[in-house]
């Protein structure tokens, strides 16, 4: 019995010492899952990285974030997920279990965001995927939020635009079947286009491991004589597809999605006249957006894109939630994020009244003389 008492005492003392050593000074650790290497670095990773760094700098330059009256430094922990689905989950688990982050930002792509969202939900740590549009990312996961509009919204908006504004009757689909994003968006477009009296005349798929030559798919599409080709893919594929299509003499109008990267597509003359959707444009900026654009340009010498803007917004929503929660407990932060109402972000107003999907507007643009020109706004 005495041995037990001595043993207990020893452990109690050890525990107390460990707790005392562990207490101060606590940073606000936020994990960021970013495509820092691989093909998505230029189209998404870099913007995510820069916006995250800027948000961290800005928060710390103004003295950190007050939690319970004490200023805390923000520390973002960046993890590269490259272009590998299993890497995203590994890195997410690493951030959650070993780095003990209080919130996650990213991943930007639905393929990665969906499994990571499951892990965040399981670990009960709030996560905001700024750009993921797939419904499954947030569906049934109260800990997961997004900044972007959903594929349902985007797909329907683009189908309606193609059918009613462009007066297209025949549509062809060309998409990366291995990507949840492209596949799901195509499904939504198909359903809406048909519902509005159109016909889908071709359904051509590919997978990214052989996404270099689309001649076979394009030839089949040419045979179907579509008015529009819906191509919700990522830049490398899109530019090749448009170039190859024009080379085959296919004159149908291309309709892209928010995954189209304008920076790289500007250089491709064949995309002239193509339509696409954006989450946000620097030239329709609000007061909030203006100062962000200026600061971003000062820091990096380039104009922020939608990914950067949405990432910035994700951080500001998390910061505001931490201030309101007055706590670094992930559960309190989640509750504060869920209570976000009328947050005036760069990409528009964010409200999470109905879960993690904020109602957002879809902007439809067109390439005219190598520049994106605003065509239509579709509100939720």
């Amino acid at each position, binding site marked *: *019995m*005495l*041995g*037990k008492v*001595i*043993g*207990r005492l*020893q*452990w109690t003392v*050890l*525990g107390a010492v460990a707790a005392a050593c562990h207490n101060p000074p606590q940073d606000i650790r936020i994990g960021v899952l970013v495509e820092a290497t691989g093909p998505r670095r230029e189209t998404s990773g870099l913007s995510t990285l820069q916006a995250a760094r800027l948000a961290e700098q800005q928060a710390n330059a103004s003295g950190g974030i007050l939690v319970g009256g004490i200023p805390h430094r923000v520390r973002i922990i960046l993890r590269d997920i490259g*272009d*590998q*689905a*299993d*890497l*995203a*989950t*590994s890195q*997410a*688990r*690493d951030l*959650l*279990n*070993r780095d*003990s982050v209080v919130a996650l930002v990213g991943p930007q792509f639905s*393929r*990665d965001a969906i*499994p990571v969202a*499951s*892990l965040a939900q*399981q*670990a*009960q*740590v709030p996560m905001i995927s700024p750009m993921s549009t797939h419904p499954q990312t947030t569906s049934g996961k109260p800990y997961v939020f997004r900044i972007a509009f959903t594929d349902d919204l985007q797909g329907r908006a683009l189908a309606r635009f193609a059918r009613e504004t462009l007066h297209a009757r025949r549509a062809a689909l060309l998409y990366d*079947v*291995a*990507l949840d994003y492209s596949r799901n968006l195509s499904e939504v477009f198909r359903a809406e286009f048909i519902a509005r009296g159109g016909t889908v005349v071709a359904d051509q798929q590919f*997978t*990214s*491991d*052989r996404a270099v030559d689309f001649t076979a798919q394009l030839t089949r599409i040419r045979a179907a004589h579509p008015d529009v080709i819906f191509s919700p893919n990522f830049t490398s594929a899109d530019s090749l597809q448009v170039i190859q299509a024009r080379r085959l003499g296919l004159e149908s109008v291309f309709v892209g999605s928010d995954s189209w990267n304008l920076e790289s597509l500007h250089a491709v003359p064949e995309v002239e006249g193509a339509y696409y959707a954006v989450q946000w444009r620097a030239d329709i900026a609000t007061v909030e957006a203006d100062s962000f654009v200026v600061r971003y340009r000062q820091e990096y010498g380039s104009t922020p894109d939608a990914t950067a803007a949405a990432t910035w917004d994700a951080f500001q929503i998390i910061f505001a939630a931490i201030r309101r929660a007055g706590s670094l407990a992930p559960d309190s932060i989640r509750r504060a994020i869920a209570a976000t109402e009328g947050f005036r972000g760069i990409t528009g107003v964010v409200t999470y009244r109905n879960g993690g999907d904020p109602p957002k507007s879809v902007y439809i643009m067109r390439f005219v003389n190598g520049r994106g020109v605003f065509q239509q706004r579709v509100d939720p």
Partner: protein
Amino acid sequence: MTNRFTRVARSLTGRLVFTFLGVSAAIVLMVAIVAYRQARSALKEQVLERLKTIADSREQQLNRWVDGQRLEVRFLAGLPRLRDQLPELLGERGPKAQEDTRRGLTSYFKRTQSQKGDLSEIFVLSVPGGRVLTSTDSSRIGDYRVTDTYYVQGQHGTFVQNVYPSAARPEGTPTLTISTPLADSQGSVRAVLAAHLNLTEIDSIFTDRSGLGVTGESYLADRFHVFVSATHFGRPDYPRGVGTFGVIRAADAHESGAATYLDYRGVAVLGVYRWLAKRDLVLIVEMDAQEAFAPASRLLRSMIYAGILSELALTALVLGAARRIARPVVAIAGTADRVAAGDFTAVAPVETRDEVGRLAVAFNKMTRRLSRVYEDQQVHAAALEHSQRLLQEIIDSSNAFIVVTDLQGVIVLANRPFTELVGEQVQGVVGRPVLEVFPLVDPVRRATAISEANATGRPVVSEESFDIRGVWRTVLLSRVLLRESDGSAYACCTIATDITKLKQSEEERRVFAEQLQHTQKLESLGVLAGGIAHDFNNLLTSILGHANLVLEELPQGSHSGADVARIVQAAQRAAEMTNQMLAYAGRGNFVTARVDVNALVSQMSQLLQVSMSKKVELRYDMAPGLPAIAGDPSQIQQVVMNLITNAAEAIGDQVGTITLRTGLIQVENGPRPPSTGAESLPGGDYVRLVVADTGTGMDAATVAKIFEPFFTTKFTGRGLGLAAVQGIMRSHHGTLTVDSTPDQGTTFTILLPAVAGPAPAEEPVRIAGPARRGAGTVLIVDDEEPIRSFARRALERAGYRVLAAPDGVEAMDLFRAHGADIGVVLLDLTMPIMDGREVLGRLRAIDPGVRIVLSSGFSEHDLAARGEAGDERFLQKPYLLGALLETVQAVMDR
């Protein structure tokens, strides 16, 4: 109960027993703890060694198992059936063939899976595209795994993807996947065969508890701290993995080792942790510390029980021994208690021959000696008490206050007068510091006096005053040091005699003498001035009267007329001087009226303005509603004029301001600080008049002299100015004070007692009617011939018949002779032989209705003071022709 225990614990026996028990208990405890710790440490080594052996075997088993699964997958991939059916599976022979093949393969894979049970999913992925062509989990068919590592690596050779959280499973299950390429008959890779190992099912390896006791367990965790074993996996208690010491050391630092730490339940364990780098897994083997150290605890327990038993036995032994040793000591202690209580007959028993026995013998000797000393001491004490009582009675009988203190100031003796003074009993003050009992003593003076007494060897006498309950008392303090035979001081005796009354009567005598002297001075001055004035006034009456007569008789514009007018002027100035002299002596012509000082000043304002330089600004600051004062308006006017003139002259040709301020002040009864020229005033309301100038001011020496008669700073001064003002003030029971600073200016303040009620309205000035021709007889009684002749001529010229008598006797004769004709008697009051008052009495005796005008060179006020003034009209000498005629006519008309 507690008290009894305390008593026992404090007794000699008790202390002996408790000390012995305490020491032996401490030794037993120490031995027990050392033994326990050694046993524990040995057990720890032993248990950890055992756990390490178990960990080794578990690691080997795991590796063997994974290698076995790798071979299994390769075996499956090498099946000719699979290679041959690849084109069908890839859909190259049409969808139906594909579906059939898929179905066939699936059921084959499922059979394999159920036989082995170690693979959770077997599936085939297309190259390119990474599409799931067939799988034991049919829900996965059609999925794309194009970017998964096992797909990418599996195209090039057999690949084991170490434990990772599966993206395909919602809970991110830790998964270990083995993949291998599937080539067609031409040898080109067309697909990848992959299998997820059922990690949660490897518990068969880990649930083997042999060598782990009751509480021991072994389990796996992945590098993210997540439980892998099925018994633990997915526990909602650990949503972010288990961060125990062992898991963290192994997973984060990639270390292997053994330690005692808290496990995931928070229970202390002995644990062996191991990082399996080959599989990215953490292997943990743990056993509860309580179980591991149970033998040590048992050892400790039995040692303590044994210790307690032997302690009890020892207690009995020690108690007996202690009692035997302590008994004689206790007996001596009992005897000592009796001696201490005063019983010197008590004898301690001598029981042994050791140290205790010697102690008893010595004690008994000591008691006998003590007894003798005590008896002697009693005799001495009685004598001492008697002499002390005697001393106390002697000093109590003294009127002086007597206090004796030691050198530290603590009272050793005090007499009754002193204790009554401080309101205490004698017993109450002895032993207390004198400065505390009588805090009024100045400690510094006292110390100085004592050190002086010490130095000189003589008593030091000083006079000090104390405020005793609101009354100042002066005492004569005599301090003397009392000395031993060797001359060193041991006490200080203070004898204080109250000399308050003595001092008071001394002071009273001094003040009285001073006042008397002052009064006498004034009195004699007054008498002198009055006498001179009387004679002067008689002379001046004659001079003025005759000069007047001459003036009237001389023709207009004659040279002699101007000369006579100068005589009149000079005589009038002499009369003025006489008045001032009287005023200084406090005997000026005194008319008592209620005077409003404000009104009086207002009436004078024009006069004041013209009497000074244009550069001087005269400011008035008058308090409204002032009470009146009782006094002579003309004298008050003279005072104001005098002060203003002085002020104007002090300013001279410079630019300056004179402020004339009035106000009311209340003077309280009691002594006030002395001020220049001011006597002490009785309490009451006073009207204050202040004249302040911004002139040259005066130094203190000048101020001291300004009230002296004939002192002047002015070249043209007449010398009686301020002396006269002071006299007027004195006669009005007022004061005059001055406050002056050189180069800043001078302020004169006069205070006059206020009288009740407001000042009277100004009486309309009665304008005398034109002089009429007189009719009737006037009897002039005056010892001065020139006056008689002047009066006679004046009255006769006015038409009166005049009789004149040089003294009272003749006057009485004349009155008796002409009584019926005489309308008015002009009677001088100061005459030799029979003075005016007596004449008046006799005249009244003859004719009570006789009309009389009294006349004198003394003032009416002076006469009133002597009781000589009556209802009669009074004509102050020197009088002028007009005044004489007007008075006589007025009385005649009555």
